[in-house]
């Protein structure tokens, strides 16, 4: 980016710069009104209270909603949110990396078609894909029928409504988000570097760990962000595949806003979720900076 900025002429005529602002202003204005302003309102509400009539009152601002959110009974929900999204992120990268590498190295002229095939599930509704897993995982579903026919079990195993089902569903749902950035960074890599490492007597594992992995780290970080962020805010998968007893922060927020109507409390929970997400994002970006500085 700095290179591009340097190539550009230092100053442009005033008229042209005004025209440029006309390009940017509508979008920025839209995001300020319909994105930033609502977020600020959520933040203010999170310090408010609910009056007996159910309306939001901002006359006694305080931290009571945050204190309520950190009570013992909500600890599992925070823990679940983090655990599900962290495991999903790791699994998506571990599963996504080999296939992204394979498409890039061996896809040849069919690379784009192979990528479209990966993206096809992504373009078909997330909800529908989660629903498909319900059919497969339920007690008398496809998987249990197969297990019983093969004779691995006589009684159906409970798979739906377990942590396993939630992580499976999320990994399935967000895997394409991981594969795409992984593919882009692997495909962009100059493979002669690996060859050079091999010529210098690195074995395959060493060449991968010390050349391929550091070079493709930006893709790994992007993949991690693109799976972690939707995973931590997802309430559909924990709800449909995790069942009623599985709680996550996103699920509690959803229930508070759709039925509980305690908006200030829901706002506080939502804001904590936002903080968790931003913390995860900044950690990922810092890792990226360290890796690129250390590996470069």
């Amino acid at each position: 980016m700095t290179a591009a900025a340097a190539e550009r002429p230092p100053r442009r005529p005033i008229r042209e710069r005004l025209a440029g602002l006309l390009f940017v202003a509508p979008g920025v204005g839209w995001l300020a009104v319909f994105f930033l302003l609502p977020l600020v309102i959520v933040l203010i509400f999170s310090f408010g209270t609910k009056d007996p009539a159910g309306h939001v009152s901002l006359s006694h601002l305080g931290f009571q909603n945050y204190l309520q959110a950190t009570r013992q009974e909500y600890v599992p929900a925070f823990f679940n949110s983090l655990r599900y999204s962290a495991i999903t992120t790791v699994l998506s990268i571990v599963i996504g990396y080999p296939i992204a590498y394979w498409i890039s190295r061996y896809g040849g002229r069919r690379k784009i078609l192979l990528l479209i095939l990966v993206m096809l599930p992504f373009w078909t509704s997330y909800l529908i894909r989660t629903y498909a897993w319900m059919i497969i995982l339920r007690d008398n579903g496809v998987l249990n029928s197969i297990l019983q026919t093969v004779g691995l079990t006589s009684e159906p195993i409970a798979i739906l409504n377990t942590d396993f089902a939630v992580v499976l569903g999320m990994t399935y749902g967000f895997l394409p988000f991981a594969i795409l950035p992984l593919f882009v960074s692997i495909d962009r890599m100059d493979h002669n570097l690996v060859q050079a490492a091999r010529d210098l007597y690195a074995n395959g594992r060493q060449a991968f760990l010390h050349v391929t992995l550091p070079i493709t780290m930006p893709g790994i970080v992007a993949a991690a962000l693109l799976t972690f962020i939707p995973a931590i805010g997802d309430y559909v998968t924990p709800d449909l595949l995790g069942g009623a007893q599985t709680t996550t922060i996103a699920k509690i927020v959803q229930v508070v806003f759709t039925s509980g109507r305690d908006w200030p409390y829901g706002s506080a929970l939502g804001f904590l979720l936002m903080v968790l997400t931003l913390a995860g994002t900044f950690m990922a970006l810092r890792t990226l900076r360290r890796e690129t500085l250390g590996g470069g």
Partner: protein
Amino acid sequence: MNRDRNPWLTGLAVLTYAFLFAPIVVLIVFSFNASRRNFVWLGFTTDWYPRLFANTQLLDALSVTLRVALIAVIGATVLGSLLGLGLARLRFRGSGATETLILLPMITPEIIMGISLLIFFGQLFRQNGSIGQIGIAHITFCISYVAVVVRARALSLDSRLEEAARDLGASAWGAFRYVTLPLIAPAVAAGAMLSFALSFDDLIVTSFNAGVGSTTLPIFIYSAIKFGVTPQINAISTIIVLVVAVALMIAWRLGAFRGEERRPVAEGG
């Protein structure tokens, strides 16, 4: 150049494709299941498909979804393309802040955007959900994607092309209209397609901004799933999967994705 293929890697890739497609195959197969409760295979039937077209609630939901998507695609494509172009073409005070502003909606969990717009419309405008409200919400989360795609394309263009047009006597508008615009058109189209897909599929943001009479297809499907699994849902899903697959294949045959295979045009010149 191509060393011997690693059979383990190929095996893993095949398994991953199987993992990606198995649920979709199951979904399609079970849309032809005669059993109403849809657990066990009770025989082949195509009964569920004609029933879809008699289901007025479903057709209403589809019509709402398409109207919302139209609003989202037009709004986000216009605002996002302008934003992306502006960011690529000029450095101005606050352009760094603008770039952060564009990234923020992409790293905000959908549920936060959903509740913040719910509170915003509910408290400031006493609105309890409508097609327009969903449309505004969708434009908001689609703008960033369009802007990022268009910005990347505009940055890869050679600014000398537009300068050459100016040297040959074109006006600023003319150079933009006849040189820049055709060159970024594929990115604008990609942004519009992405917006459509995001809008059509969205459940979370939508569910907080929908009211009476603005039930979208994902909301309809979600409540149907919660109520009980029926092969009708499989039938709708099968149709959606097929439409998407056909659209992607047509786009591929037409070369819509070919830009990614080549280096940017301007770089060669």
